[in-house]
Structures are given as C-alpha cells and as structure tokens.
C-alpha cells in the first residue's frame, strides 16, 4: 500500500519537473528574442468561458460559455494604455430542485451587457506583450424565467481587473489571452440577507488588430 503511494508521489514529482523545465526553457527562448515595438491603438475581440464567483450564481447558471468581450486600447505612454470596451454575457440556468418538496425546476436565462473603461500597464517581454489593468464597468442585466415569463431588469456599477498577454502574429495581428475578474454587486436579490455579486472570472482568448 505505502509502496504504491510512494510510486504515485514520485510519478507526480517527475511530471511537475517536466512542466517546470519546459516552461523555463520556453521563457528563456522568449527572453532571448528582441523586444517588439508597442502599438499605440489596438482593437481586440475575445471569447472563452465565464466562471461565476458567487455560489448562488454558480448554482443557478453554472459556468457560462462564450462571453464576448470587445475592447479598444490606446497607448497614452509607452507602458500605459487606457481601454474601453463592451462585454456580452448570456447564460442558461435552472432553479435548484428541493428534494423534500418536488423534483421540479424552472428554466432561467440571464443576459448582461456591459461597458467598461480602465487603464492598464503594458510590459513587452521579448516577442510577447504582457498587460495588467483595472477599471469600472457599467452593467445592464435581465433575468428571465422562461416558462411563466417573469423577468427582472436592473443596472449596476462594478469593478473590473484584467491581465493579458498578446502574441504578435504579424505587424497588424496578434493572438491574445486574457483573464478578467468582474465584480458586479447587484441590489434587489431574492435573498434579502445576502449580497448578490453577478461577477465572474472570465478566461478569454481572441484576436487583436493593431491599428497603428
């Protein structure tokens, strides 16, 4: 029993060692390349998966695929950009089943449109451009119970933080990867004792177009 466990641990250790070596060698390879020129104006569009941060939200809607984020960035300084953008979020959900009552649930839909503004720091790292920023978002959302047709619409002001990486494919185009954290405190939730956060952690990938 203990021998098997020891083998498992050694196997796991070897895998991690392999990952670290590969990552380090990749980073060294990137580091060796010359730093690219930073574009002043970048337009990007990205999609991926949205992971709700609050349990009641996650319980109802789960992880929502394909949020769409479009963003324009303008370099004010060499390492500082301001950004403005739009995000569309859509999720289908189900009300939770109460096993003590009846195995019955209702189909839900949540749509959210957001406008965001903020600033980010950009750091060229050989051929990559790393960025990290924060800002504010203004969100309009609507929750709908499909069967009876109830719906609730509201608006909220929130906070956004994002970290991303750009990999230039050409002088104009680049692949982007971005992690975004949205905090969207919403009033009037169904649980009067709790505070509702419609925010999520978004894992996005997309394409950027460098205007100049």
């Amino acid at each position, binding site marked *: 029993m203990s021998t098997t466990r020891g083998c498992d641990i050694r196997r796991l250790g070897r895998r991690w060692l392999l990952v670290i070596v590969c990552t380090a060698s990749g980073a060294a390879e990137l580091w060796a390349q010359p730093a690219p020129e930073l574009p002043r104006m970048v337009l990007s569009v990205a999609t991926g998966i949205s992971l709700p941060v609050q349990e*009641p*939200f996650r319980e*109802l809607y789960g992880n929502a695929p394909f949020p769409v984020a479009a963003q324009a960035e303008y370099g004010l300084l060499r390492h500082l950009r301001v950004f403005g953008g739009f995000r569309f979020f859509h999720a289908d*959900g189900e*009300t*939770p089943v*109460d096993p*003590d*009552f*009846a195995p*019955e*649930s*209702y189909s*839900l839909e*949540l749509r959210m449109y957001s406008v965001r503004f903020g600033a980010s720091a950009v750091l060229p790292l050989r051929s990559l451009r790393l960025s990290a920023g924060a800002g504010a978002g203004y969100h309009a959302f609507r*929750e709908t*119970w499909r069967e*009876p047709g*109830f719906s*609730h619409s*509201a608006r909220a002001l929130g906070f956004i933080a994002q970290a991303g990486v750009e990999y230039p494919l050409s002088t104009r185009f680049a692949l982007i990867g971005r992690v975004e954290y949205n905090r969207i405190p*919403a009033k*009037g*939730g*169904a*649980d009067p004792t709790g505070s*509702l956060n*419609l925010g999520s952690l978004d894992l996005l990938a997309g394409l950027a177009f460098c205007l100049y």
Partner: protein
Amino acid sequence: MSFCRFTRPLRFSLAIILLLAFSASPRPADTVLVRMDRPAKAVIPDGWISSIKVLQELDSCFLVEVPVEMIAGLEALGIRLEVLDTSPAGKPYYLVYHAVPDEHEAMRAFGEVRRIEEDISLFWAGSEDVREILPSHFKLKRLPENTRIRLEAAVPQAQPPVRAVEPRHAALITQMADMVSGQRLAAAVQALQDFRTRYASTAGCEAAGEYLDGYFGSLDLETAYDQFSFGAGHSSRNIVAVLPGRISPEYSVILCAHYDSASDQAGTLAPGADDNASGVAALMEMARILSLVPLDFTVKFICFSAEEWGLLGSRHYALEARQAGEKIVAVLNLDMVAYADLIPEDLEIIANSRSGWLLDRFDAAAGRSLAGVELVRHVNPSFNRSDHSPFWDQGYSAICGIEDVPLTNPHYHKTSDTLSTLNMEFLTAVTRATLAAAADLAQPESNPPAPAGLTAQSGTVRSLFFRFKNVRLNWRAGGAEVAGYHVYRASTSHGSYERITASPVTAAAYLDRFLDPDASCFYVVKAVNRQGRESNFSAEVRDDEHNKRM
C-alpha cells in the same frame, strides 16, 4: 511534573478546551416568572425566543418564565418587565378574576398575590386546592405549564373577509335551528339543577356526569369518560360524546360547556342553573338535532368538569388533544347563556387573535338564527375565565359565548342560581345561533362528497432575483361520480376562499405556483360531479402543514 513538560501553546490550548467544556456543559438555568409587556414586533432576537417559556397571553402582556441572566438583555431591548416570582419551579399559579379592583388586596389574606391587569391577579398559596381557599365569587384559571402560545407584538383585531354560509345549506341550517325546543332546554336545566350540587369532587357531580353520559348514549353517540385527578387527591370526569363525521372524521368541531357548579355552600347546594346548566342544556339540545343530520366533520359534545376549580377538566383535555395531534377545526364554548339583565339581551362572543376567523364564521352563520338577540364581538386574550381558554393555550381556535362581560347575574355562584331566574327565550336563541354555527362548521353532507385527506406541502423556488413559494396539494380521489375538483385558496384561515382553478382538475393533486414566500395560504378543495354540482369544502390545510422539515 508532567504538566510542566507541556509546551506553552499546548497548555494554552488545554485551558481553552477546559473553558469551552465548562461553558458548554448543561447546567440548570435559574428561571423567574415575569410579567412582560407585549414587545414591539421582532424586537426579541430569534435565538432568545426558545429560552422564553410563555405561560399565558393576556391583552396587555405575557406571563413568561425566563432565565435570570436574560432579564437585563430583555430590558436593554426596551421591553418592560416585572418579576413576579423568583422561584417558580413546581408552583401551582392561578389567574384570579375579580370584579372590583379592591379585591386584589383582599386576596393577600390567603396567599401570595400580584396584580397583572386591572381585574386579573396572579395568586399562589401552599395548597393546590385554591378553590377551597378563595371565596367562591373569585373566578379561577390554573396557569398552564405547557402551551403553544407565541410571543406576538400586538393583538390584531382580526377582520378577515366573511365567507357566506353555503346557500344550499342555509335552508337546512335554518330548519335545524328551528328545531331547538325551549321546553327541552328548560327540562335539561331543571334536571341538572336537581342534583342539588355539581361541585367537582362531590357525588352530585359524578351523578350528573352519569346522567349526561346516559343522555348522549340515548342519541346513539359514542360516549366516553375522560377521567383526571386534581388538587389534593380529587378526581372527576369530562363527558365526551362523539358524532363521527362521514367524510373527514379526523377533523372535529368541539361544542363544550362545563357541567360542574359552585356556590358559597358548594359541598351541599350549588344549583348552577345559569352557571352552567344553561350551557350544558344547549349542548344536549344541539346533540339531539345535529345527530339527525349526516355531517362531513366529526362533532364532539364535551361536558367539562372542575371548571370552577380553575378550568382543570378542559386543561386536561386540551393538553392531551394537542399531544395526540388531534385536528380540531374549532371550539365553541358556552358558559352562562340564560340570564338576561336587559330585554332584549345580547350575546357576547369572545375570541383571541388567532380565533378571529371563528368570530366571523359564528357571526355569518348565527345571524340568521339569532333573531332578537344582538351579537357583541370581543377579541380579548385576557378573557381566560372559561373552558375555551385551555384550547387557546394549545394553539386551537376557540370562542366563548356568554351573556354579559362583566357578569351581571346577581345569583352568580350563589344558591339562588336557579331555573326561575333564567330567560328561556334567550337561551333558546343562543342555542339556535350556536347550532347554526356548529352545523356550518361541520358541514351537512352533500352530493358529491367533499374530498378527504387533503395535504399540503410547500417549497421555495428561487433564482437570483425571484423567490416564490409553490404549494403541492394532494387528496384522496373520489368515486366514479366525481368528474373533477376545484381548488380554493384564502390568505387567512377560514377566510374568504377564492377559486384558483378555472376548470375542474381531474387529478387528485394540484400545484399552486409562484406565490409570495412570506405569506401563508390556506386551501380547501371541492369535488365536482358530472352535472357540475360542487361538494362541500374539504377540511382546510395551511400551505406548509405537511412539510417534512416542520
């Protein structure tokens, strides 16, 4: 030596564990008996409510037992408290009702006394036989030890919409009320008076109980003695006669009156014609008439004993009923209903806050039969001086019918309380009114039969911005003649039911969806036959009555 070897963090942890162990170990809490003013709504934290033992609800206050250490906390919440006794364990307390405020002082000669309200005092003495200690004109109630009374901020003057008597029953109920015979009532009062005394613990009381048992037996009702002991080795019997319901026999309407009597010579002479041969005579006459008609729900005719000793018979019955989970739709108690100081006399009906609906039902049903006698309604939890009160204590809906509040009968608890002082026209009218209300509550059987076995379970469904209550109703399917069912809902118990099914549902189940989760709903169901004729209502259920987690 070994302790010294422990490291400092270990010693600290041990101290914390010991501290927690001592603080968590159960130790008997010292409680005190307190008069507590009605608190403002929701001022007491939920966690404290379970430590407060409510013994009595009155109009202005509650009598409660609370742990000593909670007193300061309650006062800090702005609740006015008065400690009545610092060692209440095991003491028999009595509420004593006196007509004159000065009599409060007079009671000091007999034992400990505290003023609770203007005409109500709390009394206790070394003996349990307080009836034998205090003069007979004091009305007593032994304070209950186990109640289902809730701490409520204010006495709501319940005004639910009145549901009219079913039109097809109206004629039958009027016909039944017309069968009430003044001569029979007078004969029954005379027969009870002829026992000379019915003072509980005497042979006269036992003989009167056997007479009543025989009378109800002669009507083919199921009868039983409900024996109980009280005081210093006394015992007595409630007389319980049952008219089983045809559709939902597990639900019962209780008609009651006490048959024991009192006077200043109680051991030998206490005719008690008004108090309370009058109420028992009404019960006997109602039993005779109601037994002729098939009813949906069971009707119980109960003659309580030892009412004059502090409502001891009804206290015994109501507590056992609650412990057995008895489903009591309503309790109608009659006590002193034949003396008229004015012509025409009015009938006073007293309810507590949760029995307001019953006041309305009585009013609606009795109005047609109470010609010449006005009904005066009171919602007053302080009126605890008769056998409806122990049912209030156990959370049942109950009302009391009485000739005057305050009492005006000069023969009260005297040997002169005889048939010759009574107004039999008034007693006849009261009996008719009560019979009409009882028949309406128990529902004369109809075709098709009313659905039985109705249960309700509620659950909450929610999303981020919505929370609803869904209620699942189930009932036993009717016979082949039943084509479907209509479901009715009310926001107050026995309130004005609103039909929620547009057309009859064929299944013996219904899901009422998207309701306000913070409001209670009450449901009844009617069966519909192929000709479209509707049955009586089923028994009423509250939306969460059969929830598993209750």
